[in-house]
């Protein structure tokens, strides 16, 4: 029987859990270092995808990023990837050979928020620079070409870098109402487009909540039947970088990891890289002490809010959202949702719009109970209804028993 096959059993019992091994032993890192070094040397030997573009040093000086800032970034990135500090020179080198990896970035049903998050910082950040320096062959929002020219760019890139390019997908894919998304003069539905481009890709990287799990377009009643990339693509490794928008640090982290090792990072059961999605928001939240102490913001602007109390009662979903924003934050570490005083809405989890972004604790949220389609109610209301029904049944039984008992004793007396 299939069930008792050894590899089947092994697969079942070695399910990817959330175990994060932050220290894999000296031996492991020594080997990894050697492998990464070889790979970087090999990459350096390769030609950049576009040879006449600027060199990395020129980029840095053009963008007014000091060497010091760059090295600060390198340390941060090494730590984010959970590598020991000895890897810092390699990470710095990896940044320089970024332009050897061709990237195709497509948008399906989305708001372009991930791209926007990348390019809209007040001062140029290293993450932004890296993504600019990366040879993005096709990016609908950023590229200069339009119309037929743009389509040609895409075809050229696909043909030239068959089996080598990384495909970034932003946005969910409609499968029920496929025509809800079509592009180009030679129309293609989202499903067709993703499948065609993924076929020749080295790996597919789903950026943002929509591309990962369907996100906002997949919220109830999900008119277009939006799903994430991993639900339509087979046979190609998929990495999800959810969150709304995805944190540029994590996007760059995945690319960095790929450049360093030639492999994709270790993933959890939802195909999210463990280095970024291994811990809950709640575990590293600055308000955690208030959570344990039972100090909660009761309403916006109250004394608790002024004292940075925990936002659990205002609907913070940090306790069951896996992401690293509490550590790396957004916009170059400027701030993050809980830092500005509003709860986490769980944007890096599946179904976040229906189940997480309710602005109140899950127990008090109007969410559709699993079995009762179409009803919106809190779990306590559903439960109390059942308890009340039981109580009414018992009440009826008790009263009739009492009446019947009285009659009986009357009969006996007679």
């Amino acid at each position, binding site marked *: 029987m299939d069930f008792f096959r050894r590899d089947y059993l092994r697969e079942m019992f070695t399910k990817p859990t959330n175990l994060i091994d932050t220290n894999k032993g000296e031996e492991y890192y020594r080997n990894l270092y050697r492998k990464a070094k070889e790979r970087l040397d090999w990459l350096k030997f390769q030609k950049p995808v576009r040879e006449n573009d600027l060199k990395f040093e020129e980029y840095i000086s053009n963008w007014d990023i000091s060497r010091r800032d760059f090295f600060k970034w390198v340390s941060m990135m090494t730590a984010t990837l959970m590598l020991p500090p000895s890897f810092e020179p390699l990470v710095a080198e990896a940044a320089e050979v970024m332009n050897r990896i061709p990237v195709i970035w497509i948008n399906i049903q989305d708001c372009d928020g991930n791209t926007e998050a990348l390019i809209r910082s007040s001062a140029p950040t290293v993450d932004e620079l890296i993504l600019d320096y990366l040879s993005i062959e096709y990016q609908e929002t950023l590229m200069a070409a339009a119309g037929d020219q743009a389509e040609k760019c895409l075809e050229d890139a696909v043909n030239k870098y068959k089996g080598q390019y990384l495909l970034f997908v932003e946005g969910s894919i409609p499968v029920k109402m496929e025509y809800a998304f079509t592009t180009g003069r030679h129309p293609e539905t989202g499903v067709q487009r993703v499948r065609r481009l993924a076929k020749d890709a080295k790996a597919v990287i789903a950026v943002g909540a929509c591309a990962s799990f369907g996100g906002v377009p997949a919220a109830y009643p999900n008119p277009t039947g939006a799903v994430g990339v991993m639900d339509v693509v087979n046979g190609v490794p998929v990495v999800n970088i959810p969150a709304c928008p995805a944190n540029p640090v994590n996007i760059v982290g995945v690319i960095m990891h790929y450049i360093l090792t030639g492999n994709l990072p270790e993933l959890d059961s939802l195909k999210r890289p463990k280095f970024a999605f291994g811990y809950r928001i709640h575990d590293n939240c600055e308000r955690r002490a208030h959570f*344990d102490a039972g100090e909660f913001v009761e309403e916006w602007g109250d004394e608790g809010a002024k004292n940075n109390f925990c936002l659990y009662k205002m609907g913070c979903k940090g306790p069951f959202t896996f992401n690293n924003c509490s550590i790396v934050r957004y916009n170059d570490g400027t701030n993050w949702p809980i830092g500005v005083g509003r709860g986490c809405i769980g944007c890096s989890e599946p179904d976040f719009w229906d189940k997480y972004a309710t602005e109140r604790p899950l*127990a008090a949220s109007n969410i559709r109970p699993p079995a009762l389609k179409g009803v919106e109610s809190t779990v306590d209301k559903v439960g109390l209804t059942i*308890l009340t029904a039981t109580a009414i049944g018992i009440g009826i*039984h008790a009263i009739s028993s009492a009446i019947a008992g009285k009659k009986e004793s009357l009969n006996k007396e007679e």
Partner: protein
Amino acid sequence: MYKKVPRMTKTMRVFHWINVFSVLTAVITGLYIANPYYQALIAEPAAHKYVMAYNRFFHFIAALLLDIVSVAVAYLYFRSTFDKPIKKLIPNRENLIEFKEVLLNLLTLNRRKNFDSSHSDSFNVVWFTILHLLLVWMLFTGFYLYVQGLESGLSSIGKWWPALLHIVTDWVGWLLGGQAGVRWWHHFSMWIILSWVVFHIYYQVWRTIFWKEGDIAIVFGGYKFKKVK
């Protein structure tokens, strides 16, 4: 003339009251964890008070007691030297008839009583089994939620503990739709258990009043009384 019949051993009664205590504690603290319904009101800095943390602590202790007792009860179902409940669970002719008769006794408001009420009957055993299954369900959903806080893969008692919990409970998330779904079900199942408890108490009191055999005494003294003609 009444005869004294033993119905619950001392161990069984201890288990019963541990269960009562644990379910009560779990409900009171669980509701707080789900949606804190009172404020700490202690004018100390956060580092000195542990309101949520204590609620969670007692919730876990209650869960632990329930789980240990569940294992023991499961063992007793099969191996008890006093009364093996499993015998009453087997759907054979005798048990089915008894189940029907006890149910009819309840529905006809004690107009009909064609079964021997001196021993534990099959209706009651089924009813208790439902509770134990509900508790097992709470165990799986609860540990699924619990292990999410140990995602470093470490715990004070070693790596094996979170690893074991992942292996045993990860399917729950797949079944119920991840974190949010499991939380919903864990909370919802509490209401089912409360409904169970309400009926259970009512039924025991009702039996005491209408059967006139002192059923309520079983859980305190371990005995009830049976009329002998």
